[in-house]
């Protein structure tokens, strides 16, 4: 093949096949460029960055909605490889694109309500935000270990900057420094792991992983006694470490509380939700791509159980360490850690079920486990963002984010309190809020996986136990808000019922309730996205 032919083919592939399906990401890119250009021409008085950002996010959302409509209408799941197979476009991707664009829109709305980037910094901030989101979308759609690394870096690097965005604040710079060093270290470890995995398997293409893995396993004994497989396992663990850093799983969670406390509540909310979503998408893809490798079932089971152990440690530590926290962001950081633990339960269950040779066709069970994860993420978006939004709104009035700042808030801002209540109870996992449904799906999946490996029952028990543990610190905050009286000298929080702020948080709370009361639409969507991924594998 001639070089020119190759170029032609590549251009053709890019323009005719890839770019049309890359619309959402393009929207983001265009918005970033636009915002920077606007400032370049000093037109930001006329067109504030937040307007551009809202429009851009809305466009991205619309685009992903169209993609969703198109893809989910089809009877059989379709997947298209973009950019010579570096990315993949399927229901799963679209689900996350839609998820992330929605979240982007909400975050932009929140930041413009709270005015966290001042007008001057608006373009920078939103560029970083959009850039990070772009990276997360790439994470969700990556189909190659190379893309995996690039996407993670794409998502991380702007995040580092965003954490340190509050200029002149010691804690912000400290949080950012810790985040960036930790992130860089984790990325390095992950990259080393990628090199090991790619080297042992001889490919970086994730769609070939299971095939190559089976081949490698066939060469050796198939167990971890085989040096090559052992190298592979080590590499896999290192990749996992990189993802675990993004997911803030124990023991890769150390950055999380510090970075969250240093960052503004809006950024912390963004980090806790979006980067988690992207990382989970990637983790699920990685797991699915390794599934079905004959001869490596033991390895996969070990991987699944390992995830389960991490999950147990993560949620227990997250919930317990949240007990004594006075800073609400820090408390929610630990809550985030715990919730990552809950969600990893689903992945663990999925992997265990996939590696169960005796079980026959497990696609339905796997899909429902994944459905649980996707649903939970979706609910988590609203409940966690709602909680952070309340903290941000309170901070705007009290200049503080500690538990003392919300003491007796019910007398001044009942709307915020009720939203906080809905979000927190949903985080605990109580009906009729969405968190319960999500948790139920995940617990059900774990229980179901119990027939594949009995460790899953232990996992489930810990999941239940942690639900009870978690009640303590959530309710401690609620107790302070509702049952105590506001200090005399506390700054007032005059958030009216008829205000954009209230409307925003009430919308979030409304979605939390809606997802709890009428989970059908979302669960079906999540299910079909999950099923598509499983089927295609």
């Amino acid at each position, binding site marked *: 093949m001639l070089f020119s032919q190759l170029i032609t083919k590549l251009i053709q592939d890019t323009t005719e096949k890839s770019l049309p399906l890359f619309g959402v990401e393009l929207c983001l890119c265009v918005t970033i460029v636009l915002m920077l250009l606007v400032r370049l021409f000093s037109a930001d008085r006329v067109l504030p960055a937040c307007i551009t950002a809202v429009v851009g996010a809305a466009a991205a959302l619309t685009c992903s909605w169209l993609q969703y409509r198109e893809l989910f209408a089809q009877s059989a799941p379709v997947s298209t490889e973009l950019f010579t197979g570096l990315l993949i476009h399927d229901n799963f991707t679209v689900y996350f694109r839609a998820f992330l664009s929605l979240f982007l829109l909400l975050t932009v709305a929140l930041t413009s309500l709270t005015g966290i980037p001042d007008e001057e910094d608006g373009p920078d901030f939103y560029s970083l935000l959009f850039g990070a989101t772009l990276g997360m979308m790439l994470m969700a759609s990556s189909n190659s270990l190379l893309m995996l690394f690039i996407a993670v870096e794409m998502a991380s690097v702007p995040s580092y900057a965003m954490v340190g965005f509050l200029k002149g604040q010691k804690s912000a710079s400290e949080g950012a420094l810790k985040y960036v060093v930790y992130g860089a270290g984790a990325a390095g470890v992950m990259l080393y792991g990628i090199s090991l995995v790619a080297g042992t398997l001889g490919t970086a293409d994730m769609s070939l992983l299971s095939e190559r893995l089976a081949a490698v396993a066939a060469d050796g004994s198939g167990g971890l006694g085989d040096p090559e497989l052992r190298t592979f396992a080590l590499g896999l663990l290192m990749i996992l470490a990189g993802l675990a850093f993004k997911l803030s799983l124990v023991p890769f969670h150390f950055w999380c509380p510090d970075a969250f406390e240093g960052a503004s509540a809006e950024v912390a909310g963004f980090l806790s939700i979006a980067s988690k979503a992207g990382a989970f998408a990637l983790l699920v893809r990685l797991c699915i791509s390794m599934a079905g490798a004959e001869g490596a079932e033991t390895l996969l089971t070990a991987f699944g159980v390992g995830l389960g152990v991490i999950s147990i440690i993560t949620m227990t530590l997250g919930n317990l360490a949240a007990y004594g926290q006075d800073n609400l962001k820090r408390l929610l950081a630990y809550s985030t850690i715990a919730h990552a633990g809950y969600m990893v339960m689903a992945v663990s269950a999925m992997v265990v079920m996939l590696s169960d040779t005796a079980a026959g066709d497990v696609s339905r069970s796997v899909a429902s486990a994944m459905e649980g994860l996707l649903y939970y993420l979706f609910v988590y978006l609203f409940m966690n963002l709602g909680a952070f939004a309340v903290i941000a709104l309170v901070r705007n009035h009290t200049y503080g984010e500690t538990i003392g700042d919300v003491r007796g808030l019910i007398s001044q801002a009942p709307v915020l309190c009720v939203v906080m209540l809905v979000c927190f109870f949903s985080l605990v996992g109580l009906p009729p809020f969405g968190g319960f449904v999500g948790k139920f799906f995940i*617990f059900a999946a774990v229980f179901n996986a119990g027939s594949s490996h009995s460790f899953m029952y232990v996992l489930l028990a810990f999941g239940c136990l942690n639900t009870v543990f978690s009640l*303590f610190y959530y309710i401690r905050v609620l*107790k302070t808000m509702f049952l105590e009286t506001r200090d005399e000298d506390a700054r007032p929080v005059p958030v009216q019922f008829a205000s954009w702020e209230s409307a925003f948080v009430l919308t979030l709370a409304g979605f939390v309730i809606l997802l709890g009361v009428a989970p*059908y639409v979302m669960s*079906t969507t999540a299910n079909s996205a999950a099923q598509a991924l499983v089927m295609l594998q």
Partner: protein
Amino acid sequence: MNPFLLLSLLIFLPLIGALLLLIFDEKNTEAMRFWSLGVTLVTFIMSVVLWGQYDPAQGMLLADVADWVPSWNVYYRLGVDGISLPLVVLTGLVSSLAMAASWSITKHVRGYLILFLMLEAGMMGVFLSLDFFLFYVFWEVMLLPMYFLIGVWGGPRREYAAIKFFLYTLAGSVLMLIAMLMFYFVSGGTEDSFNLVALAQRASEGTLMSPSMQITAFILLFIGFAIKLPAFPVHTWLPDAHVEAPTPISMILAGVLLKMGGYGIIRIAFPLCPYGAQYCAWAMVAIGVFSIIYGAFAALAQTDFKRLVAYSSVSHMGYVLLGLAIWKINETTGETLNSDYWQMGLNGAMFQMIAHGVSSTGMFFMVGVIYDRVHHRDLNKFGGLMGLMPLYSGMAAGLFFAGLGLPGLCGFIGEVFVVISTWSFSPPLAILAASGVILTAGYILWALQRVYLGAEYRGPHAEDITPSNGRENAVAAILMVLAVVLGVYPAVLFDVMEPSIRAMAEASAEGCQNAIFQLDQLQASIQR
């Protein structure tokens, strides 16, 4: 009325009422109170209509089924039978009365009323759901309003009490959640996997769960329900919650919430894992008897009036557990041995739930009436109320006698029916349970003497003691009349309950027998 509409309205009417409270003027508390009272009364009337519509001979009155989460086979499935119907009516009644008793609440009235109505909706939902998932949702939904009702409007240690209540119940319900998942997956995740009726049917045929799994599932369910019941040793949330809760909420707690434990056992735990239930029968009976004695002793030692009544609830609910569990089988054939006696126990337990709902609601109300006046509950600082508030004291005595188990009042029937059917299960435990009558008489009479009798009132705020007003008298009189009617003509309840309970018991017995048959076969195949 169409059952679907009627049953749904029973649940959602209070919710709609709660929403509409938002349009009231914040200052106009009186209007909001009357509105809420109206809503609870209409709900109660509808529950009575439901009673009228229900035909005991026909078994379960099922409403149409609506989709909820079809991908998980969760349906909006409501229905009512002789087991749940009396509890539904009781819920309607106690809610109305508690609402009438809520005039003493003056803080954040709107919030209180909204939470109160939400609570009622949750309670109705629990008793009306026939879908396990739906049941669980309603079960948990009640937690939230209850937490705040205790936590905001409660006594000095309200926060502690509220969180204790919350934690206990949550701990119980996660166990229930696991059991629920067991049923779902064991039944294959089909359309009927959350359908309590269909699951019970399969359990009865012996095709739902293996015997050993039944035991696990039953224990999980039982702990969840025993916490709510409450049975020793998971009862300690109750005294705190009762003492700290405001009077109307204590009434609801004692009158309705505790019944959910018993209801859960008889509606879910027994029919779905009959072998497990049978296997644990001994333990349950022992726990029941122990709760009776233990609660009574604890009540004897209290100096706080409300705490005494709270412990009396522990004791009285012990009879419920006892009555449910006196199920004896022939170990080899699996045949149920004392079926009529067991049914008497079951019926007696159900009756005891209703009776306790009447008597302890009344007792808490009576405590609340005096507490509103003198703002203390120290038993040693009362006395002489009979002279100061004669009508109130007279009715209080009546309601306490109902709690004491005096014939002619409702407490007697349940208690005695349970106790005399216990001998066929275990004579020693029956004797122990019967000894409860002495202790009960002891603590109730002693309390009556210290509070109502005597020459003079010995506590603070003597000047605030005024005779009970019309609203208070009306609430007490309604409960009193009910106590007498149930005590004199219990057949009015038994006629409704008995067919459903018999069906449940027979199905469970069959299920147990099938399970034992399976075990035998298993053993035989192992030997071969």
